[in-house]
């Protein structure tokens, strides 16, 4: 009854091509941004920022990056965490060696570093595809982890390769409290998400989707394979790199290369699948789901069993349920949470009438 587009006519190309063509969507999005930028910083507490919102936003960004590569361009990658590591370590080194560069420029440069590395590791995608490519991307994961652990230069010769992020200062304002870090991360993620949303509707995005749906057919109709596949790798790694830089600077503070291990790659791939392949919204939903799930499981188990469980059993049950839920999701809703959301929207349009 309330979610109805009756009376909203698109009379110009501009109106037809808006990201949110329905007025209610625009209002809802505006309200959401208002709450996120003003409401939450005013009323949230430190736990909410540091333990939930900041990691959620950063991992959403990385998920968005992988979603561009896997969901839109159809290239399966298991090396996401490696590209995040490149971004994180690059940001640290830029800050260390060229402190005169402003922080935001530094983050963009780190993203570009990750993009360059991603493009290099994307080269095999021109020859191999599908599951072969997935295994091949593992090479980047292990190689990058080894590189940062083995060569002290990257971590400024600290013992065991741990890097500690420098203080973040933007235009003279220190980004040091949880609230400021949250707003900082939120701004970057919002801008990049908007860019992604537009990018996938552009010529480049349509080329990616053509390659995803059938690359031979795409090549026949004149889409340059080299440029399309490599640009997908570059853009995806850029997002992952910025996410990695934020992970180091805005979330963890000090990081060892093992923070970006294979498990992180799997985690992000899981977020993509659960959230919905080929959906910007899905990246956020998937990341939120995977972050909240362990917390929910823990509190549920605490309530059901109390302290009756043998110590050490709890993480294993958690792992089991986590795996089972992934399988459950794949069986019940293979298109992910984003699909559930759009089904809900369809229902809302008609409610309370049956047709």
């Amino acid at each position, binding site marked *: 009854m309330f979610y109805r587009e009756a009376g909203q006519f698109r009379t110009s190309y501009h109106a037809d091509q808006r990201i949110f063509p329905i007025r209610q969507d625009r209002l809802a999005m505006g309200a959401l941004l208002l709450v996120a930028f003003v409401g939450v910083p005013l009323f949230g507490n430190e736990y909410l920022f540091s333990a939930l919102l900041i990691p959620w936003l950063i991992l959403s960004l990385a998920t968005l990056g992988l979603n561009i590569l896997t969901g839109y361009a159809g290239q399966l990658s298991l090396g996401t965490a490696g590209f995040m590591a490149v971004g994180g370590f690059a940001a640290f080194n830029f800050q260390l060696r060229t402190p005169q560069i402003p922080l935001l420029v530094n983050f963009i440069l780190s993203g570009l570093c990750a993009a360059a590395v991603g493009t290099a590791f994307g080269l*095999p995608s021109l020859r*191999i595809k599908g599951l072969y490519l997935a*295994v091949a991307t593992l090479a980047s994961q292990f190689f990058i982890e080894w590189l940062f652990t*083995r060569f002290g230069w990257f971590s400024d010769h600290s013992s065991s390769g741990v890097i500690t992020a420098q203080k973040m200062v933007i235009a003279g304002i220190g980004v040091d409290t949880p609230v400021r870090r949250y707003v900082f991360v939120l701004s970057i993620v919002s801008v990049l998400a908007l860019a992604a949303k537009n990018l996938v509707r552009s010529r480049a995005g349509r080329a990616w989707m053509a390659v995803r749906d059938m690359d031979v057919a795409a090549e026949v109709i004149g889409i340059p394979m080299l440029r399309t596949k490599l640009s997908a790798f570059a853009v995806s790694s850029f997002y992952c790199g910025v996410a990695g830089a934020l992970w180091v600077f805005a979330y963890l503070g000090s990081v060892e290369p093992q923070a970006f291990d294979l498990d992180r790659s*799997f985690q992000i791939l899981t977020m993509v699948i659960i959230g919905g392949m080929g959906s910007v919204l899905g990246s956020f939903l998937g990341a939120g789901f995977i972050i909240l799930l362990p917390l929910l499981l823990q509190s549920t188990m605490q309530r059901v069993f109390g302290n009756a469980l043998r110590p050490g059993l709890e993480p294993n049950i958690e*792992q089991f349920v986590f795996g089972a839920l992934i399988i459950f999701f794949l*069986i019940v809703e*293979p298109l992910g949470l984003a699909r559930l959301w759009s089904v809900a929207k369809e229902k809302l349009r008609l409610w309370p009438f049956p047709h």
Partner: protein
Amino acid sequence: MHFFFEVLIGGLLAGVMYSLVALGFVLIFKASGVFNFAQGAMVLFAALTFVSLEERGLPRWAALLATLAVMVLLALVIERVVLRPLVNQPAISLLMATIGLTFCIEGLAQGAWGSVVKGLDLGIPDNTFEVQGVLISQFDLFAATVAGLLVGVLALFFQYTRVGRALRAVADDHQAALSVGIPLQYIWAVVWAVAGAVALVAGLLWGSRLGVQFALSVIALKALPVIILGGFTSIAGAIVGGLIIGATEKLAEVYLGPILGGGIENWFPYVFALLFLLVRPEGLFGEKRIERV
């Protein structure tokens, strides 16, 4: 030159162990087109079950049979609960499902049997002996023999039994196999059970080498470059690929390692397989696929 051969033979024998894990991957991929990421977890699960049963006082043969039964049961459950509802889904969904399965099996294994490192002694002495000045480990030789026997048995099974022939038919073409009346679901259950048995053998050998612990399921990842090198669908590829990966990995560690700073064993097999794929995208023995619009 002696040293070179010693490293080479050591690498080849280590490669046999990778082949054993890769074999499980290939069997399942051939029959069902599923890229089974959970093979490593199955190796861990099998080894852990065997050791724990033995610790609880079962004689060795009984523990072995019981573990085999558990692996078959696991295969049946996986086929019924995971595979059957996911028929005809894209490959990436199935891959994700097996990643979920990995979490499940690891959680199950460690939840049921605890996560302490357990020793496993098969009663094979790990002595080394010399052949023309080249040191060879007796245990590695034993492992190689077992792997050879296993491949032989599998080859006979595939060639001469009714079920084996049905398996090959399914591997060749799902629809054609269905149309001549081969029950696909039964075949999948069988092939997962066989992969479970292979995982048990691999788990016992790896376990007595390194101790039965969580790291087993990580080591199994090394089987991935082996199968992309050998081709996803070839048993011979799994064996040859394993030998090549084992040998090059050890040689690279010894000869390239000092130049690059050491510890390159972790990523070298992947990069090697990757470079190889650039030349031959379908792997050594993989099928060449012709794509049409």
